[in-house]
């Protein structure tokens, strides 16, 4: 990542940042909380929490439908968040930003709606490191439409085999759906290069930016991405909200996959005329407070700077990698040259779930399991891993607490 471009003046003041996160300042099981489960979800800074409280205390109303002042304010705040997301992703127009429940719904929406435009025998290419949410919707589409799912392999370091990816591309490939950063390995994929290769055979590309968007610039026009999906809660925002970016030319052709209020211009029992973008894909009352919270989260992230966040996390990641390797029995899963924020590992013969319980008693929160990437676990011959994952508020001291707790796990279980 672009650590070199961060000047000292732009560096993260981690103490000041930690002060903005109320949840961090507590004890669990009598020990100070050390939160290292950020790939699952991140905590919310005060600004995000306040934005939602403010909305409910001052502006609460339904959007796009009232003549009264509160409805206008709520609509302005909601659409203001859309404009902020548009700038964050550098999309051409607000109408290309669709709000969803999260990454999972975004992928499912593309599979359902864009999938309608595909035919039997059309191929969809994913990679071996995808989250289940970028596997199962394509299997469901294959059942429904007879499309064929292809999987590009990864190597022992957890990096995509780009040559094999390229060999799997053909004129039959209609859609390529790839993760920008793997949640279980940390690997960052060379997304611009992959998009260019996919476009060369005429495929459209969906980028799963769930993990990357909190520290890597996702510029949809620079990348020429066709679809981008992300989740607010992994970007310091509230749960239950996400974004599906799509190029207008594609979204215009796609049929809406949900019918209801807001997504129509006119309804009679004989004929319904769909609303224009983005409303065509936003049936029903959305998560208004959540969207406003997402807007506040993006504003907060931008105020710190993605490059500065990345540089800070990279420092802690390097330190953590080195410290973990000093612990006997630790095997790090995912050693890509290009990776960020994720430390997946196993500890000798001790099952990760047991590791997780001991760590929890020491105040250290990590995730254990297959991380919704069972094929990755199979590829590395492990049923599960322990995963410590970083956010901007983590420190080297958090890594030291992790390592001390791992020594405790060895003592209790080894």
């Amino acid at each position, binding site marked *: 990542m672009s650590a070199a471009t961060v000047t000292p003046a732009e560096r993260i003041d981690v103490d000041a940042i930690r002060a903005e996160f109320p949840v961090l300042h507590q004890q669990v*099981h*009598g020990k100070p909380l050390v939160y290292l489960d950020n790939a699952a979800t991140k905590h919310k800074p005060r600004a995000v929490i306040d934005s939602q409280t403010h909305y409910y205390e001052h502006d609460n109303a339904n959007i796009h439908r009232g003549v009264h002042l509160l409805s206008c304010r709520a609509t302005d705040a909601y659409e203001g968040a859309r404009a902020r997301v548009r700038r964050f992703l550098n999309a051409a127009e607000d109408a290309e930003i669709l709000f969803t429940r999260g990454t999972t719904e975004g992928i499912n929406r593309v599979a359902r709606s864009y999938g309608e435009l595909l035919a039997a025998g059309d191929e969809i290419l994913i990679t071996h490191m995808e989250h289940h949410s970028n596997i199962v919707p394509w299997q469901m589409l294959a059942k429904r439409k007879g499309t064929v799912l292809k999987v590009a392999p990864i190597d022992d370091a957890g990096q995509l085999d780009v040559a094999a990816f390229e060999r799997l591309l053909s004129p039959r490939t209609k859609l390529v759906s790839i993760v920008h950063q793997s949640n279980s390995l940390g690997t960052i994929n060379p997304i611009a290069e992959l998009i260019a290769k996919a476009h060369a055979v005429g495929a459209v590309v969906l980028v799963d930016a769930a993990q990357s968007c909190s520290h890597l610039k996702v510029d949809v026009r620079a990348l020429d991405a066709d679809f981008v999906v992300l989740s607010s809660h992994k970007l310091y925002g509230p749960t239950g909200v996400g974004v599906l970016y799509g190029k207008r030319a594609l979204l215009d052709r796609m049929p809406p996959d949900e019918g209801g209020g807001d997504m129509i211009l006119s309804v009679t029992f004989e004929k319904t005329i769909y609303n224009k973008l983005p409303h065509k894909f936003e049936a029903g009352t959305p998560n208004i407070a959540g969207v406003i919270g997402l807007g506040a989260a993006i504003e907060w992230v931008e105020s710190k700077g993605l490059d500065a966040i990345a540089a800070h996390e990279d420092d802690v990641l390097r330190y953590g990698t080195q410290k973990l390797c000093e612990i006997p029995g630790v095997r790090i899963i995912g050693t890509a040259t290009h990776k960020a924020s994720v430390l997946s590992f196993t500890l000798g*013969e*001790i*099952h*990760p*779930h*047991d590791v997780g*319980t*001991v760590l929890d*008693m020491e105040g250290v929160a990590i995730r*254990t*399991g*297959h991380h919704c990437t*069972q094929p990755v*676990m199979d590829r590395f011959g492990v*049923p*599960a891993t322990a995963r410590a994952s970083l956010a901007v508020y983590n420190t080297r001291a958090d890594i030291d607490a992790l390592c001390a707790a791992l020594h405790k796990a060895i003592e*209790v*279980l080894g």
Partner: protein
Amino acid sequence: MSDLRDLYQDLILDHGKKPRNFRKDDACTHHAEGFNPLCGDQIALFLRVSQDGKVEDACFQGKGCAISTASASMMTAAVKGMTVEEARRLFVRFRDLITGVDPSTSDSELGKLAVFDGIREYPNRIKCAALPWHALTTALDGNADPVSTE
């Protein structure tokens, strides 16, 4: 604060590391698979039940944490030689122990399984201990669908 040693007692760690009855039985009469999607635990359970309803053999294979492995190991040891009805009763007794419905361990019925009483303090680990037992009832019911703790 609960002590980790209440959960990871020596007997559990021993069975977790060196599970008994850890093998496959191609000639079993009853079989079930269990999954714990949360932590990736998998267990395949094999039973030989005689005509007159006696569990003559019980064994398992799989990948799991110390808790689920020890639970499967000690369960297979416990039900071997029991009638099907006794095994089902033991399941209910064990379930009531780990969920805290009946935390008493003074009765003789539980035997060594009483070491699992510390798990009550770790609600997110109860599933691990319960998984082999759910596989047991599924196998005895003759249900072919895999069981899940979710």
